[in-house]
């Protein structure tokens, strides 16, 4: 039991809130209790504290559940709640907008006891978080969009929401198989560890995804880091799939739909400029 509190006057509000917050998040049963002489209601204080604990931990589990649907589907509701409650106790949110809560949940569940047979679980969670983040963005926003001027006065405008996502598993297909409960596909996909690269962006119809190769990923990574067109092309070439930029654009980048092309007369004097 925690140290007794002088209830003649009672603890200060700050002290009471500190003790109550600790009791609500505690995993240890003894630490979940507060001295009963703090309370004077029709029920023991522990009954009310249990209601509040259930509300707090339930709300946080539900917030995570909405972001990590496939993870929950894969491990089951009870096991997901166990991971979510452990996470909530270790890393409670710092702000009331719970859409932002869970950014490091994927890292937290990496190696979580009981998930040893699911080595791809954390990577699946990282992918779901990226989808969730993009899904919360407003479609069609050009603010912050990056553009690259390539030789010949052609400007490439990348979607402002464009993100490059790398994984050691085919997480897009894993997620589809899990949500579709396609156990046959899942059994095959879990053995397909490798290097997977995705371009993800927010379109009007939702989050879009394109699987891309190493050269295209190198090009996009450089562009997203603010490098100019020449540096981006060099980055693509350095990845061992050297192609001329036209070929790369035609085969992988242009069909994906996350950029548009514009001929720009006025930028001819600065043919490799990158802007945001």
């Amino acid at each position, binding site marked *: 039991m925690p140290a007794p509190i002088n209830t003649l006057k009672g603890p200060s509000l*700050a002290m009471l809130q500190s003790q109550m917050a600790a009791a609500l*998040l505690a995993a240890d049963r003894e630490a979940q209790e507060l001295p009963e002489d703090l*309370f004077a*209601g029709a029920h023991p204080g522990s*009954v009310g504290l249990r209601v509040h604990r259930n509300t707090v931990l339930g709300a946080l589990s539900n917030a995570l559940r909405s972001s990590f649907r496939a993870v929950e589907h894969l491990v089951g509701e009870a096991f997901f709640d166990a991971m979510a409650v452990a996470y909530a106790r270790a890393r*409670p949110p*710092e702000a*009331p907008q719970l859409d932002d809560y869970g950014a490091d949940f994927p890292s937290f569940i990496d190696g979580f006891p009981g998930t040893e047979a699911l080595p791809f679980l954390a990577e699946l969670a990282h992918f779901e978080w990226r989808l969730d983040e993009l899904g*919360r963005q*407003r479609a069609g926003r050009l603010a912050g969009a990056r553009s690259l001027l390539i030789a010949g006065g052609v400007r490439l405008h990348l979607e402002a929401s464009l993100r490059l996502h790398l994984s050691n598993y085919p997480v897009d297909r894993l997620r589809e198989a899990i949500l579709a409960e396609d156990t046959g596909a899942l059994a095959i996909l879990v053995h397909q560890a490798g290097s997977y690269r995705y371009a993800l962006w927010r379109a009007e119809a939702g989050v879009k995804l394109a699987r891309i190769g190493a050269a295209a990923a190198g090009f996009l990574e450089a562009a997203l880091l603010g490098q100019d067109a020449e540096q981006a092309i060099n980055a693509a070439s350095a990845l061992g799939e050297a192609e001329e930029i036209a070929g790369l654009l035609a085969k992988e980048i242009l069909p994906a739909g996350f950029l548009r092309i514009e001929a720009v007369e006025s930028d001819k004097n600065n043919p490799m400029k990158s802007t945001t």
Partner: protein
Amino acid sequence: MSESSAVHPIPAQAGIGLRMPHHGQVLATRPRAAWFEVHPENFMANDSALAELERVRENYPLSLHAVGLSLGSAGGVDRAHLERLRQLRYRLEPGLVSDHLSWSIHGGQYLPDLLPLPYSEEALDIVCRNVERVQQALGTAILVENPSTYLRFAASVIPEAEFLAALARRTDCGVLFDVNNVYVSACNQRSDAGEVLANWCSALDPASVGEIHLAGHAVVQAASGEELRIDDHGDRICEAVWALYEQAIQHFGARPTLIEWDTRLPAFEVLQDEAAHAQSLLDLIARHAPAYPPMPGHQPQAAYAGAN
């Protein structure tokens, strides 16, 4: 305190708590609803949902009902959260802004619940200070709601109704009177809900009551065997709460009344049905009661006479 005028005031009619699964239907069919209320925290990190809400806002008056200001925090109101709410208020121009007589933030941690306060002089001073700060930042008076309670502190020396009345008197905030919460708290404390409501009516200045909430709740058996009522907003409003609502509007007059439903969300038409019932009671009252008065700057009645 400066005050900005709401572009679309909330009418003294029955409105509906708008939740995201209903956004699409509301945008596509523009259903009959006097006004909508949303939790602003659901739009602070979700620009996609905010874009939808802005479109809803074009056709309906809107109220922002916050859950994260933590007006009872001994550490004060979180500056960053207040700024996020301030930005939303100027973007959405809601007719009302409200939060709860509770706390949820301590030591930089947010606990997503409406945690109870001891109703003490110290707590009253702290809540007054926090409400004044919020109103200063937002440039408008807010409404503060009585929460459902599941425990009572030994340090509570001020009756809840008088605590909220004193808060309204000292800060010029209004009161969001949640009838379901009165019923849930009374049952959980083994008090007579009718007597508790009468105490509220006696303590509150009717002019300070700017909005009423109605919701369903759950009845559960605690592990220790006690029956508890949980304010889960997951069912139709029960008969006992409808009866208390009639008494409340007979006393306070017709007020903007919200149907809240958060868990096990039903079809939008069920919410419209509940709102229609509330509206029928408001219509009856409106024929006999005084017109809906302006809430800010109300002339308070004598209530809790504790130290200021």
